[in-house]
């Protein structure tokens, strides 16, 4: 399930980023050479959303501020400088909401999977989650994680 879920998150990121944010994204393959470290000064915004249904867990999304600014302007269709943090966080939450909704609908088209409200969080380490996917864009790197809850006994 973990592999299937992260694959569907990947597909949804492609669709949502291209359709709503006009961004071309490319998944980083494990065989790719490691990216140069992000500048230390680069601020990254993180967001998470919980889901529940036949299985439950959390999807995380992390996006550098510079890329988030581009996404927000593309989303709104105009230059919004100076861009408020509220707008950028709203864009991040909406992006994750659409990615999660799209993912869960594709995973199970018939039964209902409940989605929580997206929350701004801190960056999550790949060691603390089940699967991670990384995507390159011209303006920065997008990171997505999934973590499934243990089934209740």
């Amino acid at each position, binding site marked *: 399930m973990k592999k299937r879920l992260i694959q569907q998150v990947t597909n949804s990121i492609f*669709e*949502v980023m291209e*359709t*709503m944010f*006009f961004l071309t994204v490319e998944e980083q393959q494990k065989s790719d050479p490691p990216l140069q470290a992000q500048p230390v000064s680069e601020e990254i915004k993180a967001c998470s959303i919980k889901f529940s249904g036949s299985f439950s867990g959390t999807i995380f999304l992390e996006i550098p501020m510079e890329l988030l600014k581009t996404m*927000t302007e593309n*989303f*709104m*269709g*105009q230059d919004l400088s100076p861009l408020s943090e*509220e*707008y950028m966080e*709203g*864009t991040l*939450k*909406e992006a994750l*909401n*659409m990615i*999660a*909704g*799209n993912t*869960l*609908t594709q995973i*199970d*088209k*018939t*039964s*209902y*999977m409940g*989605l*929580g*409200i997206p929350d701004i969080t801190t960056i999550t380490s790949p060691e603390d989650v089940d699967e991670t996917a990384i995507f390159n864009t011209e303006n920065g790197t997008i990171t997505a994680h999934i973590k499934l809850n243990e089934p209740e006994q």
Partner: protein
Amino acid sequence: MSFSILIVDDSLPMRGVLKKTFRAAGYGGASFLEAEDGQQALEMLKGNWIDIVITDFNMPIMNGLEMIQKMKEHDLFKNIPVVVVTTEGSQEKIDEFIEQGASGYIKKPFTPEQIKELLIQLLGESTDEEEIDTAGDQFDF
């Protein structure tokens, strides 16, 4: 005729995108009211004439489905058409929206054409064509 449209969504950027989409769909002359959740929307309905409500489902305090249920219990609000715009895509959920009284459903991501088609179906053709893109917005997804 200009319409009065109430947009209910907890996302500030999404409310902006919806307004732009309505303008791109030919409803540039409409007046827009905004609410962040179902509870706030119900309060706005009490003090304003609204022709149509466009609502998200997944919101804090009161979600879109609970808001529709409350509207249907109210004599003055029960006939106002409500369109649900959301990422929720399961057939079970769509059936529930319609069963509870939603007039239509649009799944994100959406296009102006989808919005226009549904609004014409519910409100009739807009006469605001001359006001399209008065803000100079480029918006064509």
